[in-house]
């Protein structure tokens, strides 16, 4: 379970301070599929980054399954990201010089998993996302949809409890976007907590809950 209390995030110093988040409080239950919507600059990506341990709040508390994430050191935070969180980005962010399998295995390496087990796990994950035959392919040889599926497989590498997706279909055509959404729904049905940031209200409607943000605050929540 994710619990956030009065999360505030400031950028800048002195007279040039920007308030990205203004006292966000929310609670996401295990296995929920939550969409966060809002116009550009409303703070939704900032909220996602704090959820994923990629950024730290200026004030407030953040608990994940009872663990105080806000009090973690850099090393503990890295371990938290590695074991609890799976990230999916709009721009995919695959390493061009690594094969699909090597990209998938990246979080496994940081978890200390051995080379043989990394290879085997990567195969299983690529099969899970329907790309078993693309095991040795480089990202340059993959379509947008395939690259995003590889990114999802990478996000699943260490069996995370939470999948965070930031505009996962933003760079995809409609057909590939639907495939990705279908995959996310499937993962959610299997028990994964999914938090997705999107500006697409149609996609947001597919989630269990939709949180609407504006100017750093939650202005509406809809189930």
């Amino acid at each position, binding site marked *: 379970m994710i619990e956030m209390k009065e999360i505030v995030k400031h950028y800048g110093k002195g007279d040039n301070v920007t308030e990205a988040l203004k006292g966000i409080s929310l609670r996401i239950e295990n296995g929920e599929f939550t969409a966060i919507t809002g116009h550009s600059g409303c703070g939704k990506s900032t909220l996602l980054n704090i959820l994923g341990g990629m950024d730290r709040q200026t004030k407030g508390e953040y608990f994940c399954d009872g663990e105080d994430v806000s009090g973690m050191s850099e090393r503990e935070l890295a371990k938290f990201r590695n074991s609890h969180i799976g990230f999916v980005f709009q721009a995919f962010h695959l*390493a061009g010089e690594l094969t699909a399998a090597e990209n998938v295995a990246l979080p496994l390496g940081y978890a200390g998993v051995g080379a043989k087990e990394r290879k085997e796990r990567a195969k299983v994950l690529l099969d899970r996302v329907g790309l078993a035959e693309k095991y040795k392919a480089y990202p340059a040889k993959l379509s947008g949809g395939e690259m995003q599926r590889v990114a999802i497989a990478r996000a699943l590498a260490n069996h995370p409890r939470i999948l965070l997706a*930031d505009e996962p279909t933003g760079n995809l055509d409609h057909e590939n976007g639907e495939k990705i959404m279908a995959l996310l729904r499937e993962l959610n049905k299997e028990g994964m907590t999914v938090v997705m940031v999107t500006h697409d209200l149609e996609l947001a409607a597919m989630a269990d809950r939709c949180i609407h943000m504006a100017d750093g605050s939650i202005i509406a929540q809809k189930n």
Partner: protein
Amino acid sequence: MKYSISRILHNLFHNRLLYLFVLASFAIGSGLFIICMNFRSTGERLLEEAKIESSQGLIKIQWYFNGEFDVMTNPEEAEKERNEYPIPYDAYLKLVSNPQYTEDLDILYALNSGVTIWESENLLDFDLYFMNDQLFAHLYDTDRQEGKAYLGEAAYEALLYVGEGIKNGKEFKPWNDVMLYIDGDRLIIQDKSYPYEVIMPKDPDVVVLPVVAAFLTEEELSGELMDNYRMDDAVVLPVEDVFKPAGFPLLMNNLFLRYRNANWSEDTAAQVVKELNKINPKSSFTIENRYLELKGDMEDYSYDMDRWMLIAISILFLSGVGCIGTMYLTLEKRRHFMAVSVACGSTLKRIAAETTAELFLVLAAGGLTGILLLPLLRKLIIYWDWEKLYVSAGGIGIVAAAAVAFSLISTFLGLHAARLKDVAAVLKEE
């Protein structure tokens, strides 16, 4: 740790062309640098050895004649002029009376002439030496007794024969107006009488008095001719009793210096030379000394090696710039990947450590290559013939420190340029 190693090796392979340039430039720069440092440490060591040797051995004073007569056009006058300006007895007296010199130096001095006595068809030759106490002690390894004459074994036999011959009425004619013979326990020479002792140099290898050897060529010093210059025929008298045998315009002579203690300073010996040059303005006196010769050579060699050192430092500097450029290019390319790595569970510190290690491996390989290139570089840049170059640990240490510094600085600047501080913002970029 294992995964970090595999990441480092992967990155090394994928950036091999850039890293090859860095490796090559660092190899050449470090090889040249180590050679130059080895030159310095070898030179210092050789100078130290020469200094010790010089402080223990004799320093010979060489002289060169600056006369008016050319030996080719007027050889007789040139020879006469040359012979008028060695280191005369007066010059020696001036030196030994100056405590500025005698405090640090032993001044070893002798004058030498040949004397012949003619008996019927026989010629008896003697080497007459007027020797000071220091040179006597150096040659015979014993102190001289005041007022005593010392005879070589052959000289003793010959003088005994002359003495007995005179008693028995034989006629002997001195060739140089110098009559000498043994009468009982005394050596009679001219109008003086000396107690005497038969003595030979302690060191059997010393067969030629340095004062004689100074005038001999290498050929004359070798083989059969050495027998002509043994101390067997020596008649050694105190230097204060010096006189010139008839037929000799002057006496052969030479002067040696020896430092009394380990605080060797070339200045005192140089002062002596300056004094001699003042006394004999037609001669140029110099010190023949291995330390000073080596020092002079080192100064000549140093000019070249300073130039090579400058080249080495320039190449190392360029190599450092190459490291920064390489890191800038590679980390800029890896920017998004590094941000994703952080998202997947790495940290900026770990990424920085891996990157530093990656570059350090390249530079370490370059340094090792530079060390392997040392024999080739030595052939290319060193033209004089030293037996070997002593390894300067300092040179290798500096190169290693440079490798560490280049790695750290380049990684720091590269990561700074990659703007990875806000990882989340990087991941937001397309």
